[in-house]
C-alpha cells in the first residue's frame, strides 16, 4: 500500500499558482521531509493533502484512496496533524491536549494519566503546564504538548508542519527519537533541521515544483 500518491498536482491560492506539476509517491512507513524556503508552499502542500486547500488540477491519493468530498472524512480519520501556527487562544493546555481523544474516532486511544505524564516527562514538560491556559505557555511548550497529543493518537499517516520549531537541540533529539522509531507509521514533515533531514528516508524540495520554475 502507498501512503501518499500525488499525480500532476497543481495548487493555486487566490488564483496565483503555488505548486506546479507535483508528483510524489510515498510508501507506507516512509519518513519524508519536505524542504524549501519559506513561502514556497510547504504548508500549502500539507494542507492540500488534508483537503483544507483545494487543488486546481491533479489527484491526491491517501492510503490508495482518491481524496475527494466523499472520502475526505474517512481519510482524515487515519491522519494526525501538527499545524505550524499553534498560538491558539481558546482553552487550557489540557483541553487542547485532550480534546482529540474525546472524538469518537479516537476514544480507543485515550491515554491514561500515567501515559500522559510519561510522555510529558519524556518531553521535559512540567506537570504544571497541563493546568495552564494554552496561551500562557511558551512556543516550545505548546509545540511539545501538541506533538505529544499527535503522537499518542497513533495514526498511520502523520503530517508535521515544522515539528522542530521553537525547540532546543535536546528536545529535537527526543522528538525525533519518538517519531522515527515508529517504523510502521508514515511521517511527512516540513523542516529545515539538518538532523531531521538526515534521518528521513526521502527529501522532497518543494522549490523544484514552485510555479516560478
Amino acid at each position: 500500500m502507498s501512503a501518499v500518491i500525488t499525480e500532476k498536482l497543481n495548487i493555486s491560492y487566490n488564483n496565483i499558482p503555488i505548486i506546479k506539476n507535483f508528483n510524489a509517491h510515498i510508501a507506507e512507513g516512509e519518513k519524508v521531509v519536505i524542504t524549501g524556503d519559506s513561502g514556497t508552499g510547504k504548508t500549502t502542500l500539507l494542507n492540500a493533502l488534508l483537503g483544507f486547500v483545494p487543488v486546481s488540477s491533479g489527484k491526491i491519493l491517501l492510503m490508495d484512496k482518491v481524496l475527494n468530498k466523499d472520502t475526505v472524512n474517512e481519510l482524515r480519520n487515519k491522519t494526525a496533524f501538527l499545524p505550524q501556527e499553534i498560538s491558539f487562544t481558546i482553552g487550557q493546555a489540557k483541553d487542547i491536549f485532550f480534546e482529540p481523544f474525546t472524538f469518537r474516532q479516537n476514544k480507543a486511544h485515550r491515554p491514561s494519566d500515567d501515559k500522559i505524564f510519561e510522555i510529558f516527562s519524556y518531553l521535559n514538560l512540567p506537570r504544571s503546564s497541563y493546568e495552564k491556559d494554552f496561551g500562557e505557555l511558551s512556543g516550545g511548550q505548546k509545540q511539545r504538548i501538541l506533538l505529544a497529543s499527535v503522537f499518542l493518537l497513533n495514526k498511520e499517516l502523520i503530517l508535521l508542519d515544522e515539528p522542530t520549531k521553537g525547540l532546543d537541540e535536546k528536545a529535537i533529539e527526543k522528538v525525533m527519537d519518538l517519531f522515527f522509531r515508529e517504523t510502521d507509521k508514515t511521517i511527512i514533515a516540513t523542516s529545515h533541521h539538518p538532523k531531521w533531514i538526515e534521518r528521513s528516508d526521502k527529501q522532497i524540495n518543494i522549490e523544484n515544483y514552485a510555479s516560478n520554475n
Partner: protein
Amino acid sequence: MHQTIDISYFNLFLGYLLLIIPVVVFYHFKTHLVKDSLVAVLRMTIQLFVVGLYLEILFEYNDAWINSAWWLIMVVVAAFTIVRRASLKKKFFLIPLLISLAISLFLIDLYFLGFIIELDYAFEARYFIPISGILLGNCLKTNILGLNTFYKKLHSEITLYRYYLANGATRSEALIPFMREALRTAFNPLIAGISVIGLISLPGMMTGQILGGSSPNVAIKYQIMLMMAIFVSTVVSVVLTILIANNFVFDKYGNVKPGVMKPSSTANRKEPRKL
C-alpha cells in the same frame, strides 16, 4: 385594578426639558455628542409613537392573523438586524436566523402563554405581542454576541479547527470549542443579569406591571417566568442558528466557504444602550 395616571402632552414637554442638562454638559465638554443625543431622542420619540399607534390598532382588532403578521415582521426585522450587527453575510445567515428565531420564539410563546399563563386565546394581543417582543429583543443581543464570537473565533483560529479535523474530529466535534466560546460569551452577561435581578434594578416589565396596577406578588411571578422564557429562547435560538447556518457555511470538505464574515468588522460599533 388601578389605572395608570396618564401624562398630558404639556407634562411630556416638561419631561423633554430635562434634556437641556445632558446637552449643556456635552456641549461644555465638547464631546460632539449633542447632535447624536438629539437625533437619538427624536428617533425614539417617532418610533415609540408609531409603535403606540400600531399597538392601539393591534389591540383593537385583536385578530390572530394580524397579530401573527406583526409577530412575523418582528422576526424578520430581528433577523436582518442580527446579520448586520454581527458582521455576517446575508447569503449564509438570513435564512438560518429566520428559521431559528421563528422556531424558538414560537415554541416558547406557545409554552409560556398557553401552559403557564393559560390564556384562553393564545394570540391575545396584550400578551402575545409584548412578550414576543421582549423575547426577540433578548434573542437579538445574545445572537449578535454568540454568532459574532463563533464565526470570528473560527476565522481567527482556523488552524485549531483544522487541527481537530485532521486529527479525527467530525465537523461537529471540531466545532465544539467554538460553540463553547460562543455560548460563554453570549450567556455570561445574561446569567449575571439573572443573578442580580431585583438587587440592582427592578426589571422593566415588573416595574411596568406595578405602575400598571398589578400587585408586586403577581409582577414577580411574571418576571420569573419571563426570565425563564428569555433564558430558554435565547439558548435555543443561538444554538439552532449556528447548527442550521453551518449547513450553508461549510463546503463538503468541512472548509469554511470564502466570504462568510464581512471583511470590515462592524461589531465593535457602539451598541444601543439597554433601557
